[in-house]
């Protein structure tokens, strides 16, 4: 279920040409802000949960996953070189699984590990571990969704962006009901289970998050394999 050749090519395409520097900006902001707040100790004692939970989980993590998850397969679809990949005797499910694994690994490096580091910078070890666990889970689900999206439409980034900004960014933080279907809150539920008693404000329970997260991951990956199975290459969108 894993093809090392595809993985190395994907990894090189994802991180080459100074792109790694671009991905490094949001996590650096996250860690930098945590360091500044640690030094100035603001009025709100629950600030690590707020910065790392709200900002980290509903902005940094989804945006990183969005850009990486839609580009691992989407970039090849975009420039047409995906036909060479699809012409090889590699099963489509292996292609999807490999791309998904690489995207998840890169997202973990650029979004989940920084959550751990920022938590440690903030001086809360338990919270840092919880955030890492939650971010690992959220990275897996987000990337499954975005890889699927990039097989479905050539404008995956804009579609995913609308979802991240409107649903995860605004509705899930304003409307309680939207949290049940919010991937950020699945991650926060896991984080809360590891580090209870923090002001993380997870909108769903651990069981519900686990079940729904697993359903979303399996469902979107299966859809991506199906979609790639009957793939037609279109020209640049008119």
């Amino acid at each position, binding site marked *: 279920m894993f093809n090392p050749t595809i993985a190395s090519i994907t990894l090189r395409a994802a991180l080459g040409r100074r792109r790694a520097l671009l991905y490094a900006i949001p996590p650096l902001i996250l860690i930098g802000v945590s360091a500044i707040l640690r030094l100035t100790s603001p009025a*709100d004692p629950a600030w690590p949960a707020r910065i790392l939970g709200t900002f980290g989980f509903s902005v940094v993590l989804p945006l990183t996953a969005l850009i990486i998850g839609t*580009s691992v397969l989407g970039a090849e679809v975009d420039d047409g070189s995906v036909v060479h990949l699809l012409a090889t005797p590699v099963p489509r499910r292996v292609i999807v699984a490999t791309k998904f694994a690489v995207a998840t690994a890169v997202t973990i490096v650029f979004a989940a590990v920084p959550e751990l580091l920022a938590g440690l910078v903030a001086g809360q070890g338990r919270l840092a571990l919880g955030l890492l666990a939650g971010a690992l889970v959220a990275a897996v689900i987000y990337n499954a969704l975005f890889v699927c999206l990039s097989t479905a439409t050539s*404008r995956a980034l804009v579609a995913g962006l609308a979802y991240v900004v409107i649903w995860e960014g605004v509705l899930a933080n304003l409307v309680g009901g939207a949290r049940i279907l919010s991937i950020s809150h699945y991650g926060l539920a896991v984080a809360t289970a590891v580090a209870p008693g923090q002001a993380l404000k997870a909108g769903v329970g651990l069981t519900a998050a686990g079940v729904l997260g697993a359903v979303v991951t399996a469902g979107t990956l299966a859809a991506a394999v199906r979609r790639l199975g009957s793939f037609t290459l279109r020209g640049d969108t008119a």
Partner: protein
Amino acid sequence: MAADATGVIHDLGYQPYTGPRFGRAAVVRTLTGYSLRSAFGLGRGARAKIVPVGVFVLMCLPAVINAFLVARGGTRAFPYDTYSYLVRVVGMTIFLAAQAPELVSRDLRHRVLPLYFARPLRPADYPLAKLVALITAGLIVLDVPLLLLYVSTIVGVHGPGAVWHETVLLLPGLAYGLLWSVVLATIALALASFSGRRAIAAGAVAGFFFLTWVLSEVLGTVATGPGHAVTSSTAAHVAGLVSPFTLLDGVRLALGGTQPGQVPDPGAGWGSGYALLLVVLVAASVAALVTRYRKVGAA
């Protein structure tokens, strides 16, 4: 003329065009108009229209809600200056992330810039024409809903005095919409012009706007403590410096905006600081754009 020139290798005898040609102004005008059309996906397929038209409809929703409320005898539900802050932030983020790369990244990607510059066009003309087009597009998205709000309100008020009152309130709102459009479109176009890949450019624009906006909001909450209204403290003012949206909101309050906003009223001191930072941001973005197109042909 070719007949009496010496040293001509090939003269097949074709008639060249010797009449008047359109100059630089016409090229810039056409480029601006064409870019404005492409900012809304006009003249292109239905799929290119989904995002701009969708955002425009989203931005008009508060005005439509207002029309219903006024028709039922209510008063105007949304102010002219902030309109609906949340809808504006979300709408402009998505609109610019989707459409700024549409204007500049496609030309870079398909390497057609040398064709543009084969015309009597100076290096700065191309980015500035694109910028004017994107600012106009942003202005349409921001101010047409305001005009709808105005029209749907004045049909429900009585007497010329009340209509005049609404008009006086509307005009600063329109100007404020122009300020939003200039600031956001300039930053977005400068960011987008650095990548020929539409996805990367859109990610950079959206990342910048969305990330700084939420960061500023969270910092504002952290600075004032949980459950409190936004209060004036140095930390809260500093939090407002992070995002273009909060800068714009702070400038609005400093200029005498009455609606409470995302940031506390910065007063004259911080307000001029916010305005100065906005000017610096816009100037830096324009400079980056113009410099970017000094050397063309690179993807």
